[in-house]
């Protein structure tokens, strides 16, 4: 009978959250869903009470979000990996997915017609 080594089990367990994030990020074939991507990639570190500060789309106004995505996102997140992952956050997102997150933030910013908290 074939036995499975504990190291292999641990490796497999580590792969589960990564697979979930990658699957969420891929949203195979469909238009990327900015809200779901925000929840999966941003909320992990920026939820209420987080030491990195709470951020929701309505934390900033539209101009501030545009400026953030243009100038601040990459420098501030270049070394960030999500909890339980080995791949860097910015490497796990395609340009289309990044655009979808930006659009979600801008569309639901504090000065938009439909501000959202991402709940």
């Amino acid at each position, binding site marked *: 009978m074939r036995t499975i080594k504990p190291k292999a089990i641990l490796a497999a367990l580590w792969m589960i959250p990564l697979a979930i994030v990658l699957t969420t990020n891929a949203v195979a074939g469909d238009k990327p869903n900015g809200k779901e991507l925000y929840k999966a990639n941003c909320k992990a570190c920026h939820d209420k009470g987080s030491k990195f500060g709470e951020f929701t789309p*309505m*934390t*900033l*106004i*539209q*101009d*501030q979000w545009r400026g953030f995505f243009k100038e601040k996102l990459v420098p501030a997140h270049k070394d960030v990996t999500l909890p339980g992952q080995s791949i860097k956050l910015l490497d796990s997102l395609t340009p289309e997915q990044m655009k979808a997150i930006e659009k979600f933030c801008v569309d639901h910013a*504090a*000065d*938009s*017609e439909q*501000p959202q908290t991402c709940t």
Partner: protein
Amino acid sequence: MNIRLLLAACAVILTGAASAALAQDPAPSHASYFEHYEGTATCLTCHEAEAKSFFVSQHYQWRGNSPAIVNSKGRQLGKINTFNDFCTSPTGNWIGIIRNSRGETLTKGCSACHAGLGKLPSPEMSREQLENIDCLICHASGYRRDLVQLEGESFEWKPILWKNQAGLDSVSKRISKPTRVMCLRCHSASGGGANFKRGDIEYALAETTRDYDVHMGTDGVNMQCVTCHAGADHRVRGRGTDLAGTDLPGRPLSCDTAECHGNAPHKQTMLNTHAARVNCTVCHIREFARTDATDMRRDWSKTVYNKEADRYTANITLEKNVQPVYDWYNGTSRAQLLGEPARHLADGSVGIMMPVGARSDPKAKIFAFKKHTARLPKLVDRNWMVPITVEHFFANGEMEPAVKNAAHEVYGIENAKTTWVETTRMMGIFHGVQPANRALGCLDCHGEPGRMDWKALGYGGDPMMVGRGRR
């Protein structure tokens, strides 16, 4: 060039330029006036006179002179001291956060749509009251606020950007006259949901076509709410038919005045003859609630639990594409007021707000109405109507304490005994006016079946058939 052609061309160019100007976002007009927004005190630095004029307006006081209410007896009336057949009364429902069993917010109180920061409006002017005015809610594009609990039990409406000074500074400098969007945020949402209360003031009017609304269509003249309703000194023209207060009695708003369409606006004499006794809205608003369904009946005696929202409500009947009902109206109304004997109509219901007028009244015309019915509590021994403190009911579904609490708040009566009565409110329909090619035709009223109840209007039958005494 023919002078008429030249004038026509100029008119087209000017109309186009005006439409384009209105369509653009307002410029940040106050960019250089202040550095940081620090609440209403910042506005008062330059606009104390405007704040004082706003303080005495209906929009702030929620009451005012009521010359159009035939039984007002000179009192100042408004939503703050009357009651209605939707959420009934701000008394006991003014401010606070009510949550369901999941901790989700169900309601924040009537003050959500008051142009103040949470304090009840006082008749006495003070610095505290002036600083309670929320100028930005009507004047700043992109401004939003949320209810924040302060230390203790008190609440305050604060900008959602209150922790983001740079963002708040940016938004607070985008000052303009109120746009349609700013007005519709409150006036479309009243009654508990999109278009619930009024029926003819829909969010759809924010961005619409000329065919949908001939005045507000962005492909037409693109009029803002304030184009018609702005009076002077923060006073608003027009009271519909069922508002208690008249903000600007000296300047009533009507389609048929010389400043708008005049009293003979049609090319056909027959149509102008109709206009003498038929208000424009009758033919030019075929139906209302064309995008969002409206509340046509609210039965507070029947509790409904919405499992998905974990929220209790009255039993509300929503309808879409509703055909108006028609009645005579001479510009005045009769209100059912708190602490006065309930007046029952011919059908047995209590008339909450009814238009005054009759065929025999030369000042009356036939108007289009939304007829809203409800079931509300009434004191058994005094024949007075009772509102409901609905806020906690939304969370716990307990109606009896909600009624008893309201009787205590309004009348000081403990452990009140009440019964349920039917009520009727007639609400004038004035928005969603459609162009001539979409207006009613002759047979819509004079055909079989027509939409007019001629006998109820005081005629022996269809005046086109009966002939004599048609006016």
